[in-house]
């Protein structure tokens, strides 16, 4: 086991960060304490391993990264060029409106709209014959034959015919 009080200084010692005045005491302690000496060796081993371990760059597309970067820079440049131009145009438009001769004058009087009265062109539907009074009860043999009702419309080709229901089947 290492001595907890020495751990922090051992970590500094292994990285070469320990103050010069503490070096002698540290080395004396490491000679005397097996646990701390082991910790110091482990820290040194980690440090060397960490420094020697290259980052895995296999499969990293640096060309693609550069291409994307260039595209983004070009895009931003375009935006930077357009923003002042658009701002200048907006400012010019505002100035033109502000200093136009019409600016600040009341609007001209406009004659009120005249509305036209449109009469419907479609003639009203008129019945050709009145419907008979509906008979109540069972039909008799002497009952009047059913009456058709014809309704003419505005279109001479269209005539609505109302046929009252009969008990006989017209298709037999």
């Amino acid at each position: 086991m290492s001595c907890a009080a020495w751990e922090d200084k051992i970590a500094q010692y292994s990285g070469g960060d320990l103050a010069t005045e503490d070096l002698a005491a540290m080395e004396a302690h490491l000679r005397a304490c097996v646990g701390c000496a082991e910790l110091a060796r482990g820290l040194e081993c980690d440090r060397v391993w960490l420094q020697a371990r290259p980052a895995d760059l296999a499969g990293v597309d640096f060309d693609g990264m550069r291409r994307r970067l260039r595209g983004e820079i070009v895009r931003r440049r375009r935006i930077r060029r357009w923003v002042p131009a658009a701002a200048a145009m907006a400012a010019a438009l505002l100035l033109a409106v502000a200093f136009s001769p019409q600016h600040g004058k009341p609007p001209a009087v406009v004659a009120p709209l005249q509305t036209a009265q449109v009469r419907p062109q479609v003639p009203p539907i008129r019945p050709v014959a009145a419907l008979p009074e509906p008979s109540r009860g069972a039909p008799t043999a002497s009952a009047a034959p059913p009456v058709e009702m014809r309704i003419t419309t505005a279109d001479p080709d269209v005539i609505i015919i109302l046929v009252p229901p009969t008990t006989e089947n017209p298709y037999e």
Partner: protein
Amino acid sequence: MQGRSDAQAPEADLLLAARRGDLQAFEQLVTRYERLVFCLALRLTGSVPDAQDAVQAVFLQMHRKLHQVDAGRPLGPWLYTVTVNLCRSIGRGQRRSRLVQMERVVELVTADPAPGPERQMSGKEQEQYLRAGLRELPEKERAALLLREVQDLSTAEVARLLGSSEATVRSQISSARLKLRKFFARHAGGHR
């Protein structure tokens, strides 16, 4: 700089040309630093797609702030600072999904039928193992450790980049080293 094929043009010249709108000069700077930025972003985020997004965002920010970058100083430290900050915001947005991924990686490493100090891991396993270990560290400690150990910066430089005091950074780095050691000791007996 337009039309020049000099890949070793001084960084300051490239930076000044890029400021004048020379896209080729800007791309030369990108080519010089993209791998360094990617490696740092990969270690910070632990994911290739996140690291790729970070690289793109870092260089877009660099392009936007070309006039703020000091041409008299090396560009690397400035890029590292931007990378650390962007990876932090990426990490905040995707912490939940990454925690699930980390559990899977730890399961993969610990599920080995014969774990032990003599165990030999493949390169891919080692990579996953390291990513899992780094993910266990708090963001600030991870960034400080990586800048110190992987990017090989001094403690003073790391402190300057992260906007902290040297004492704070020294403490963060030693804490990160100890946590990583405990992780390696706990899972599969080490990284050898």
